[in-house]
């Protein structure tokens, strides 16, 4: 299959529909932060990562740590679509006994590489995984997605400093820079300042792109692999929280963990079709 713009756009819409639907089944969830990372996850899982749905624990596979663990439902939609588990399971999201909890859980969900949810920690775990891959010399690439609000955690910068010190060129990270956090706009709560300059000064190979432009994401990942010069990579994604569904985008700061009715689900699905 040709992985062109039309393919990615169709696939991302499909993933957004699955995401809205499974959160909609329950009536509440992290819609904003899920929808903002769908495009990067789509590019990674359909065009970049070496993973096998039939063998989720395959040695030497590429790994993804969704450090902003509350975006779990977006990842679950992709994993289900790829066949890591049946799509019907998506409707069990967040129900007691489910394998699909709000925040990513590697013990429960086939294809989830790291348990996340306590912000900042997953990113350090990704650094540990990248070191592990270096020790084993298995040539895997480790991907990590952090939030902009999450970047206020001190642990992010501990990990940033150390990944650069260790020259972890097998680590490619993304910041989902949607500019909103639970209590308000990131710039008003605790400004990130010049984020690209921060990562550059920490010794990372930094790129900044439109986080909803699939081909730009693909190109940035390829560049991160080719041009890193022994550095870990940070790709800052300018994104829109709630991307793809007008009323969710418009809810702005209120879309972090928002209720959604069945009528709203229908409106969203129509817009995404």
């Amino acid at each position, binding site marked *: 299959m040709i992985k062109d713009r039309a393919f990615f756009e169709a696939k991302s819409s499909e993933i957004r529909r699955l995401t809205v639907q499974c959160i909609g089944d329950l009536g509440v969830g992290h819609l904003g932060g899920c929808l903002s990372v769908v495009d990067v996850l789509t590019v990674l899982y359909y065009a970049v990562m070496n993973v096998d749905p039939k063998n989720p624990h395959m040695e030497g596979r590429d790994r993804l740590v969704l450090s902003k663990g509350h975006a779990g439902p977006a990842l679950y939609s992709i994993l289900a679509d790829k066949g890591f588990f049946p799509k019907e399971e998506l409707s069990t999201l967040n129900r007691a006994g489910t394998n699909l909890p709000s925040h990513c859980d590697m013990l429960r969900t086939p294809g989830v590489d790291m348990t996340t949810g306590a912000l900042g920690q997953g990113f350090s775990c990704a650094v540990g995984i990248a070191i592990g891959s270096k020790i084993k010399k298995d040539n895997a690439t480790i991907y990590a997605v952090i939030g902009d609000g999450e970047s206020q955690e001190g642990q992010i910068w*501990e990990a940033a*400093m150390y990944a650069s010190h260790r020259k972890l060129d097998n680590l490619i990270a993304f910041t989902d820079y949607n500019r909103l956090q639970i209590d308000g706009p990131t710039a008003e709560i605790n400004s990130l300042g010049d984020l690209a300059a921060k990562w550059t000064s920490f010794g990372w190979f930094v790129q900044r792109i439109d986080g909803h432009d699939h081909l730009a994401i693909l190109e940035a990942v390829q560049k991160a692999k080719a041009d890193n010069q022994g550095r870990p990579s940070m790709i800052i994604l300018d994104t829109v929280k709630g991307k793809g569904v007008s009323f969710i985008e418009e809810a702005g700061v209120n879309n972090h963990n928002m209720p959604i009715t069945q009528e709203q689900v229908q409106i969203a699905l129509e817009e995404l079709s």
Partner: protein
Amino acid sequence: MEMRGIFAAELDRMMEQDERIVVIDADLAKANGTLLLREKYPDRAFDVGVAEQNMASIAAGLASYGFIPFITSFCPFATRRICDQIAVSIAYASQNVKIVGSDPGISAELNGGTHMSVEDLGIMRAIPSMTVFEPVDGIQLKKAMPQIIEHNGPVYLRLFRKKRPRILAEDYEFNLSRADILQAGSDVTIAASGIMVEEALKARAVLKGQGIEAEVINVHTLKPLDSETILKSVVKTGCIVTAENHNIIGGLRSAVAEAVAENFPVPLRSVGIQDVFGEVGRLGELKEIFGLTAENIAAKAQEAIAAKNSQRTGGKQK
């Protein structure tokens, strides 16, 4: 030999045989004796600098890759400073990471209150799936290391890092889940851990002079607690004293009280830090200041026996 020397030598021996073992320090490798491992194992022994949170989560990442990481720091920084990383990255994610905290309680000596963990056992004991272990001497530490590695799950090793007097014999058989009855007795049980075991044995000698036979148990593994051994003992003695280098809240006293109260309630008295923070001083001075002494254990044993006798007298009068 110092405890840290034994710890590092055992790691060295096992790292030679087992490529999964990784040692991560946070700028205390010299203090913990692990620095020398880096020459021999440059890939598997490294330092993350003064960044304990990062150390804990990096270890979890490595464990998810099939490694068995040991992370080391001083007790307070290996536990209370990073308890969320331990709880989520390590324990909740079921990662096989061994957490090593040195200088427990008053043994932080001249580093003083900021470096004195009076709450580490309470924190670690309350984290689901965590095994909590404090060796009494070098022989026990040496024998425990293979079992700690063999145990598939997180372990907290509370490590006195300098010299300890020998308590156990060279041919002693260690079992991580079995407390050691060091001396048998019928009048009172003394359950002690870490540096307080030595004091408990001294207290036993004092009590013997007063015609009292104390049973001394070394509770090296606080979780899972060997309640069977403790309960058997209190069924025989009818009262118990706990002695620990930790706050009386959350540690050995709490663990023993939980086991005894639910199964066979008997009078319990305790020796430990009385819900206050630590301060600077030499070990001997701090033992006196905080009442972590053989004399205090003996006095508490007398109290426990008196309480037992008064309960029994009360029973007869009914």
